[in-house]
């Protein structure tokens, strides 16, 4: 179906090529997963399939890419529209019309299909993806998962034989991601569509994949069955790491696989349990919020929430999209709307409410890194941003740069912030906010678009902040991250707190929030691979 024949892509003459001498074939009806670190060339590979590379992006492509017998050299993307459907990372920015039904018809209008055919296909697609009740809705009012399904539907109506999806679930909460993935697997199994899908969170999709294309970052593509390829990959999802630890072969790809083999491992671990986290020596309250209310026209985002943050504690704030996590963070920081309640931050300056302070003093009490960290940055170079941060907080020159070097050593100072990787940009934004030395740090969805290595660094970084005596809150959907990072988990729904307790308590109580390791080793209370590894080493040593 898709053939890459000795493909090399270069965007600049002297830089390293994102793809070097790649030869591969994707058969019809396969679900093919593309994985690799940020910037390893996943998007380049995906965009080469329908000719966006190089027709749209520029650069040069040597070799040939053939889709369904059509060479992308002679067929620009628009002439491949009836064969390849592409859905980008942010579905909203790819929408051309303004209602669901018109968006579904747009591609067919371009192919000049007869009206009767269009009418029929729109109805079929609405049913296929379970979005029939959304047909008249404006696209902007849909939730993230609905938008993603509409975007998939909008390319499906042209009946493409190949579907290319670039991180379709990266911005979604676990349930919405399940909906989208269920729709995708249905397409593969029922319609025989060939799907090529890039994803950072392999734990979500690897069980559905027929094969894996792994990009190590040097221009090569490692191609093979998922279990075989993952065996040679340095950082992998928790399930695979657990399989390696236990010496399972082939590696498990789904919780079911792992659970069926885990009886022996469960026996080895026996009645043991991970050591309870040492209670903080003196639990001092860094921030206490009472009866926080945030209202938007027509909705109550936060309905009278109480929140206490302890010094040296990392709190994970979870809940589906729209449950009020961001609103709560912004209200606590004082920059967002807050219709009721009180916040007290106990810092060096005594007890104050950040809302009552001007913005430049509020950030000394509570530092917040928003969902898109790039919004905080506006200068041309990393050094420029650091200098500006020192100036605006009246800190000693070099404070911000020193913080940045602690977070990610060796970031070139003349680099433009927009050219940094997601993880580096997050670190820079965090360093800028930490320059004001706030005792409380809030992070809103920081791990979007981070790969496993970057997430591991992020965990170390946040633990470091907590160890230095800060109270940290991380709002996130990523259960695996929470299992590795947090001391305490708060779950929100409809603007209220529905669960609040230690990480083990909350995560083991419900299957929706349980990390993969917990699902495999239940009922024993293990959360992460690291815990299991430590326990296994300890078991071996005394013997």
């Amino acid at each position, binding site marked *: 179906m898709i053939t890459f024949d000795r493909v090399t892509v270069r965007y600049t003459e002297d830089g390293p090529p994102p793809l070097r001498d790649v030869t591969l074939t994707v058969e019809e009806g396969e679900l093919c997963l593309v994985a690799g670190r940020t910037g390893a060339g996943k998007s380049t590979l995906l965009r080469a399939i329908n000719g966006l590379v190089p027709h749209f992006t520029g650069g040069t492509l040597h070799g040939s890419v053939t889709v369904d017998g059509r060479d992308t050299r002679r067929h620009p993307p*628009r002439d491949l529209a009836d064969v*390849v*459907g592409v859905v980008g990372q942010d579905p909203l920015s790819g*929408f051309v019309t303004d209602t669901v039904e018109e968006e579904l018809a747009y*591609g067919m209008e371009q192919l000049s299909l007869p009206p009767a055919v269009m009418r029929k296909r729109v109805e079929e697609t609405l049913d296929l993806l379970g979005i029939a*009740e959304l047909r008249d809705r404006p696209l902007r009012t849909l939730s993230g998962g609905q938008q993603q399904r509409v975007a998939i539907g909008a*390319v499906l109506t042209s009946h493409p034989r190949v579907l290319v999806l670039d991180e379709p679930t990266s911005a979604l909460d676990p349930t919405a991601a399940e909906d989208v993935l269920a729709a995708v697997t249905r397409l593969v199994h029922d319609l025989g569509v060939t799907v090529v899908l890039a994803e950072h969170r392999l734990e979500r999709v690897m069980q559905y994949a027929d094969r894996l294309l792994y990009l190590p970052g040097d221009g090569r593509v490692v191609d093979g069955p998922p279990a075989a390829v993952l065996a040679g990959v340095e950082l992998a999802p928790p399930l695979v790491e657990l399989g390696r630890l236990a010496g399972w072969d082939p590696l498990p790809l789904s919780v079911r696989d792992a659970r069926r083999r885990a009886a022996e491992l469960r026996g080895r671990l026996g009645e043991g349990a991970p050591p309870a986290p040492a209670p903080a020596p003196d639990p001092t309250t860094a921030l206490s919020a009472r009866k926080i209310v945030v209202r938007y026209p027509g909705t109550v985002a936060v309905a009278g929430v109480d929140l206490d943050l302890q010094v040296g504690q990392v709190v994970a704030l979870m809940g589906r999209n729209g449950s009020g996590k961001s609103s709560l963070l912004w209200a606590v920081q004082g920059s967002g709307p807050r219709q009721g309640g009180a916040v007290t931050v106990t810092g060096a300056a005594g007890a104050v409410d950040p809302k009552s302070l001007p*913005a430049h003093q509020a950030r000394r009490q509570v530092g917040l890194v928003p969902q898109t960290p790039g919004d*905080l940055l506006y200068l041309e170079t990393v050094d420029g941003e650091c200098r500006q941060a020192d100036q605006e907080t009246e800190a000693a020159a070099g404070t911000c740069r020193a913080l940045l070097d602690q977070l990610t050593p060796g970031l070139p100072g003349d680099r433009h912030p927009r050219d940094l990787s997601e993880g580096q940009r997050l670190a820079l934004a965090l360093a800028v906010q930490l320059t004001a030395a706030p005792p409380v740090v809030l992070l809103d969805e920081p791990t979007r678009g981070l790969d496993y290595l970057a997430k591991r660094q992020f965990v170390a970084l946040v633990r470091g902040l907590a160890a230095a005596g800060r109270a940290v809150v991380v709002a996130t959907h990523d259960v695996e991250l929470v299992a590795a990072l947090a001391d305490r988990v708060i779950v929100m729904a409809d603007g209220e707190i529905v669960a609040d307790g230690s990480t083990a308590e909350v995560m083991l109580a419900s299957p929706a929030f349980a990390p993969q390791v917990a699902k495999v080793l239940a009922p024993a209370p293990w959360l992460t691979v690291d815990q299991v590894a430590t326990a296994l080493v300890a078991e071996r040593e005394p013997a």
Partner: protein
Amino acid sequence: MTDTAVDRPATADPRMTDAAVDRSTTAGRWSARWSAWRLPRGLHPGAWWLWALGLATAASHTTNPLGLTLLVAVAALVVVRRRGHAPWALAFRMYVWLGVVIVAMRVVFRIVFGGGQGEHVLVRLPEIPLPEWAAGIRLLGPVAAEQVLGGFYDGLRLATMLICLGAANALANPKRLLKAVPGALYAVGTAVVVALSVAPQLVESVLRVRRARRLRGASGRGTRAFRGVALPVLADALDRSLALAAAMDSRGYGRTAAVPAGQRAVTGTLVLGGLLGVCAGTYGLLDTAGPGYLGLPLLLAGLAAAVGGMLLAGRRVRRSRYRPDRWRLAELLVAGCGIAAAGLTMLAGTVDPELLYPPVSPLTWPELTPLLLLAVAVAAVPAWLAPPPTPVPRDRT
């Protein structure tokens, strides 16, 4: 239309006379037709625009406050009964407020700048003396009822015309109107649609970045603050438009039918030559000194050439339309109502002009003429005649 040749239904009651059967089945057909007519659907936007332009034309031909108020009431009635649930449908209120502001401004201007004198002085404001070179302009001074009333009539006429256009905006989806453009202008239509959807996104990202800037302690004033907001917003907009362009390209936007080079040249020549002809023709028409053939004939010839070229160019755009708005009887009637209202008002103007332009001095109570009333009644008919809008979609699930 009465249908006499009706097949007798098999189940007809044998006691019924033929005439009764005919009547009942005819009634049945009519009720079936009526219920099909009443099916909720969106009317062709062109019909609403023609109706609204008719109303606006009617308003421009009178300063009678009673007639104008009735026209505003009619526009409001039709909007309330036939608007959809879309965001633009709520814009009507804004137009009404704008109308109120216009009327108030006109009256205030008349009071401040004096202008017309009248006998019935309401209040004497102190006149502000102006230097000699500003002679002829009076600031404040005595305020006469005639002068205020004149301003009110003028403002009301302008406000009514604006509110009529606002009604069209609330009733018709502006984007659907763009969909009805001919093939040759398709690319222009798409550009406008995209631009319309970019505006709210831009506002959103300005708000988001401004919020983020506050997190860094920015005060939100001065050139540095402007730069801090403008740069991320621009970068964001650029990223988004690139993503949109890539999405449109990969979904087949811009696929063209193969056209021989010769035909392309002919199309280009026709359009360009035609437009030049239109320019020259207009000039000739306005310039009385020029020879006659440079006027109307050249204008018409240029127009014909340009239209022909566009039709040819439209053939090159190969695309179909999903559920196009069709021009049916209801559209014809709605547009007809608007045009009839305009025609009736003009007729009323020729029959008794002084009633349509009631004099402010001497002060007289405005009166309505039967023709003007008829025009208003005809304009209101679409409130019942037009099919109802599609029901509100279910809320967020």
